């Protein structure tokens, strides 16, 4: 009997993709479970962290960013850099501002 990869040359690649799919389901399940943790409201955005890992898995496993040309990888890295700049500068004010309570006597 011939080796499966000789009968079907795509078999090793399909097996690799299957493991990536399983990993995504596991991380997605962890994310789903984490959403039921009794976290304080301000810390609940941490539930997004598994999604960041899932995005990385899809980019590396399915989109094969590492196998792409130097130019393609540069665009992918640039996209992440620009996104970081957008989110960092955009959230700098609301996340660092200190609000002072107005005394009740001054509230009309």
């Amino acid at each position, binding site marked *: 009997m011939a080796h499966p990869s000789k009968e079907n040359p795509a078999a090793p690649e*399909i097996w690799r993709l299957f493991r990536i*799919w399983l990993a*995504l389901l596991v991380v997605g399940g962890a994310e789903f479970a984490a959403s039921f943790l009794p976290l304080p409201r301000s810390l*609940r955005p941490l539930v997004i962290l598994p999604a960041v890992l899932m995005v990385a898995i899809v980019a590396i496993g399915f989109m094969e960013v590492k196998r792409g040309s130097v*130019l*393609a990888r540069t*665009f*992918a890295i640039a996209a992440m850099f*620009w996104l970081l700049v957008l989110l960092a500068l955009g959230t700098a004010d609301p996340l660092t501002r200190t609000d002072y309570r107005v005394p009740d006597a001054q509230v009309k």
Partner: protein
Amino acid sequence: MASVVRQDFQYSSPSHQADTAIAGMWLFLATEVLFFGGLILCWIYSRHWNQAGFDAGARETKLWIGTLNTGILISSSFIYTAGIAFIRAGNMRRLIQCCSVTLLLGVAFLALKFGLEWHDDFASHLFPAFSDFKITGPEGGGARLFFIFYFISTALHGLHMLIGIGLLIWIIWRARRDEFSPLYHTPVQVVGLYWSFVDIVWLTLYPLIYLVGRA
């Protein structure tokens, strides 16, 4: 099946042409990252000032539909990428099958999202422009903001899905005409990048809409 691949005149080789097409798609996706990045920024900013309202809105979303749709999109990306592996091995029939299953999963996603979930949202008075919006009181304003984000982001994502479904039909049509081979399947790869990116956008929207506010 094309056994000889020739590049257009401006490229030095077929692989140069393929690399350029793939890099071009990555550049397009970089602009898409910033497009959806603006939406994410809106979510961060709006939620920061309206946490209770955002959480009240999130609790009204249909978690089972969002979770099922996440599984559907992850599976569709897996199956489409498997199709790329099959055409690399010269198996056109399997490529067409993979694209067809991906297409069906994409349609299932849209049916669940817009046929069932949106319909239910409208019936439950969760559209933020309704005067009889379901959530009232001190959380009403924040909840309306949440549902503005919800409807705009899912509509934009759905539009990208529709474009992706159109591209899948185009790939199936070309594959049935035997236009791809192990040597030439660049359009299959480029559409695969787009489809996986649409998957990535949903992986980001899913926790923002369904999970973060669900305490």
